[in-house]
């Protein structure tokens, strides 16, 4: 039985990345704990450098500069995220759309090759890449031998190993936090949709509240919150495919 925080002490670090604050937690007192934390932040910075639409040198920005009919090679980060986005787009009858309506069929990713099919296409991976970045940071921690910990990118978070992480939800209207859940060995993403929320696409969303999705992988927790919000269906069949559960609250 895992009894949350009392199990051991933790080293926690936070840095501004992905347009929000990213927190990494690893067991305190282990050898090279600071090096582990640095590796996790480096993994996130790497994803950000590839996929940010704000960075002129990112693969995403270079894709936007292509002429229709052209294609370019992309690395593992872009290929993984874009193929997941493509799959979710097809499985949701187009509800999940990283082109945000600019040209849903205006791009295609085959393996590590990204094709531009329409001059109007603009990709915004804000609804899926943050979760992927969290998965990448967790993978970096695990491959460096870290047996438990967590990564939280402004509400998209994943916890692994022998820790049950207590989660709180921020009150977007008046400040302060409320207990939300305890999470063990999985990912949770919560998005707030409604006036004043950070999501500029909220006008498209059927749900005007919080949507939380728990899934084994943070990429899917992140992306599926958007699908549940847009479809208004917390039992959308795509949840099952990724071992996910959703709540609106």
């Amino acid at each position, binding site marked *: 039985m895992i009894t949350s925080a009392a199990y051991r002490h933790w080293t926690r670090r936070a840095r501004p990345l992905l347009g929000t604050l990213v*927190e990494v937690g690893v067991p305190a007192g282990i050898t090279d704990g600071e090096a582990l934390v640095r590796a996790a932040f480096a993994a996130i910075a790497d994803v950000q450098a590839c996929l940010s639409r704000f960075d002129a040198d990112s693969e995403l920005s270079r894709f936007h500069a292509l002429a229709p009919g052209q294609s370019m090679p992309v690395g593992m980060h872009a290929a993984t995220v874009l193929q997941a986005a493509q799959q979710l787009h097809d499985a949701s009858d187009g509800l999940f759309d990283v082109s945000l309506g600019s040209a849903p069929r205006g791009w295609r990713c085959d393996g590590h090759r990204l094709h531009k099919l329409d001059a109007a296409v603009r990709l915004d991976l804000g609804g899926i890449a943050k979760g992927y970045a969290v998965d990448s940071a967790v993978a970096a921690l695990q491959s460096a031998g870290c047996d438990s910990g967590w990564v939280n990118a402004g509400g998209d978070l994943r916890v692994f190993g022998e820790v049950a992480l207590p989660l709180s939800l*921020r009150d977007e209207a008046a400040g302060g936090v409320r*207990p939300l859940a305890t999470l063990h060995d999985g990912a949770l993403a919560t998005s707030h949709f409604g006036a004043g929320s950070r999501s500029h696409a909220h006008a498209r969303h059927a749900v005007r509240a919080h949507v939380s999705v728990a899934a084994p992988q943070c990429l899917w927790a992140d992306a599926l919150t958007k699908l549940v919000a847009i479809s208004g269906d917390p039992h959308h069949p795509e949840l099952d495919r990724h071992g996910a559960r959703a709540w609106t609250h």
Partner: protein
Amino acid sequence: MRIVLAASALALAPASAFAVDYLSAEQAAKLMFPDADRFESREVTLDAAQMQTLAAQGVPARSARWPVRVAQRAGATLGFVVVDNVVGKFELITYAVGIGTDGAVKQVEILSYRESHGHEIRLPAWRKQFVGKTAGSPLHVGDDIANISGATLSCTHVTDGVKRIVAVVDLARRNGALG
């Protein structure tokens, strides 16, 4: 994967404050400049003309006085560390910026995070209690490892603050105020 929802998650329980201390200013300085054998405290004081210069660069200095830790090894300067606070919608964030001798940002570390009820954060007394404090502050949450979800928190204020600090340190170096 196992998730247990709190009873209050779906009801409207009263909200409470939230605080995390990550590092003290001293710990952050040592993390950023592990080779330093000494951190010398200096204070950069900007005059009206310098404040105007910064405002013209699009980074209003906000304060005329900026404490700077100068990282040194055997008397040679390795870089600079500046600690600052920014206030967001409901949050107060203390952070440290490490800057190399080339003027480039080496590292940014969050020192502490305070999530308050909306009314508290505008009160100078509430904010003042955290200035210069990190570990051991009144709201220390001990070994609680709680994390916030759904924090649609933007780090724009931190990003703007980092730019301001880079400009202040650059100006101070060019004027010889940091040696």
